[in-house]
């Protein structure tokens, strides 16, 4: 599948944003949010800004962004529509929570209530994003049980990293329970495990379709190969669904993503917890950036490596 920049940015940024909102919601309902308006502004503002930036990036993928509001209407059947509804509802809850946090302090019934809504909404948004891909039978690399866990774990991990960095700059990371950092660590680890399993499963998956089946020749012909394409130059369909160019770099890119996540972000987070002070803030910022970069690479691969069933009509033997 064609790795469109708008969608890679959208899923990465809004993943981190809603991941951070999920953590803030959890801290809010557990009464664990740190004191102080600057902290609320920076942490809450950053999480909301990332989520909104992701959503804005997604509209660049639309050919008619001026009609984007229509996408809220089909939540009964469409995960894309549900994603839109959940994201806007969650942003509303998050704004309410941050406002209550700033105006009445972190220990407050309004923060608790809005925190619950923010936590649930943020998780629902991330799951809906993943389900957009998970629900497509035509793309086997997406249509499997790993897509949702990977999206969730990566969102919670990158969201946690961003939040740790933000809180540390206002000196609040030590105030808030250390379990945000520990949870982020666990999420990073879970994401690495889930993604490894997903890559593993993809390389061992048994294709459900072959060219004879796509042509209605099952039982009539053993194989079929394209003789002549229907057109003389590449079509939109091929551009979108039969992306091939850099699949050979996949191995290298997987290692880069793993390196950024496991050998940069994870150790930086551990070191920061031990170090404290300004060094910690710098290290946590590095960890957050490395985490986001790892997800950008992972997302690029998520699209570029995925094969669509329509390639069966263009030379693929099995998909």
């Amino acid at each position, binding site marked *: *599948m064609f790795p469109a920049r708008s969608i890679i940015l959208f899923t990465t940024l809004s993943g981190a944003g809603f991941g951070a909102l999920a953590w803030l919601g959890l801290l809010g309902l557990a009464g664990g949010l740190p004191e102080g308006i600057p902290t609320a502004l920076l942490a809450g503002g950053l999480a909301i800004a990332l989520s909104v930036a992701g959503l804005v990036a997604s509209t660049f*993928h*639309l*050919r*008619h*962004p001026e*009609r984007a509001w*229509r*996408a*809220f*209407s*089909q939540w*009964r*059947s*469409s*995960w*894309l*529509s549900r994603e*839109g509804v959940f994201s806007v509802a969650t942003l509303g809850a998050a704004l309410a929570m941050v406002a209550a946090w700033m105006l009445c302090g972190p220990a407050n019934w309004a923060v608790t209530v809005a925190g619950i809504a923010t936590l649930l909404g943020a998780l629902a948004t991330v799951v809906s994003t993943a389900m*957009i891909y998970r*629900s*497509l*039978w*035509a*793309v086997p690399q997406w249509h499997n049980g790993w897509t949702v866990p990977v999206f969730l774990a990566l969102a919670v991990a990158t969201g946690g990293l961003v939040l740790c960095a933000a809180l540390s700059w206002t000196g609040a990371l030590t105030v808030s329970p250390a379990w945000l950092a520990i949870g982020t660590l666990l999420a990073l680890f879970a994401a690495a495990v889930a993604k490894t399993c997903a890559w593993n499963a993809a390389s061992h998956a048994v294709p*459900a*379709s072959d*060219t*004879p*089946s*796509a*042509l*209605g*020749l*099952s039982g*009539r*012909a*053993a*194989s*079929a*190969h*394209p*003789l*002549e*394409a*229907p*057109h*003389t*130059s*590449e*079509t*939109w*369909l091929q551009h*979108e*669904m039969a992306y091939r160019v850099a699949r050979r770099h996949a191995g290298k890119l997987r290692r880069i993503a793993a390196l950024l996540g496991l050998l940069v972000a994870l150790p930086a987070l551990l070191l920061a917890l031990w170090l404290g002070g300004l060094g910690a803030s710098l290290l946590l910022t590095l960890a957050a950036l490395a985490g986001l970069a790892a997800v950008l690479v992972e997302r690029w691969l998520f699209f570029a490596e995925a094969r*669509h*069933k*329509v390639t*069966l*009509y263009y030379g693929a033997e099995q998909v």
Partner: protein
Amino acid sequence: MTSLPESTQRKLGLVIDLDTCVGCHACAVACKQWNDTGVVAPLSDQNPYGTEASGTWLNRVHSFEARDDQGGFALHFPRSCLHCDNAPCVTVCPTGASYKRTADGIVLVDEDLCIGCGLCAWACPYGAREMDESQGVMKKCTLCADRIDNQHLPVEDRVPACVRTCPTSARHFGDLGDPNSEVSLLVAARGGVALMPESGCAPTNRYLPPRERRSAAAPVAETGEAAADAPGGFLGWLDRVLSA
């Protein structure tokens, strides 16, 4: 509404005979022509007179070399929307632009609602939807809804343009939900199949597989010693007649 109807009164669709299709592309051209000039906005082309001409087509004719136990054979394969019963392209649409008609099962796009997100094309395993690059909306086969319902056309023209045009009569149109319709009887007689039934999309259209080749057909070519020894010409003919 992008929820699918529980059932449709009729299931209009195509039956395409892969045995008769000669891959002339007349159906694709007729489709392009009709849908370029019909009631909806035209199907745009990009760089139509250049070397890399491309454009939106709702019907594409592939040619394959298939192999069975008797060797290879050419297969021409027109590909267009199958008007699936369980159409994933409809349910994924966030705007309600994609829908399936309850009256006849035709899957359509309301171009005024479409935001051009492209998700429906990703959802279709058959590659039946194409983005119109200049209008930014999704296009697909309408089964010529603007012909089959058009009381102003002569009765013989109230069929999809591709069916009307096909010079070998390889394309048939009718109600596949009615077991006694001409198309359903044809499918039953010829063992018509759905494409990629494992998709769960439950396509309406059926393809009639190429007929088995007559077993008496001479082997394609003999090679090696047998071929070298076999006499040709009159003697060869005599040899074949006597050993038959």
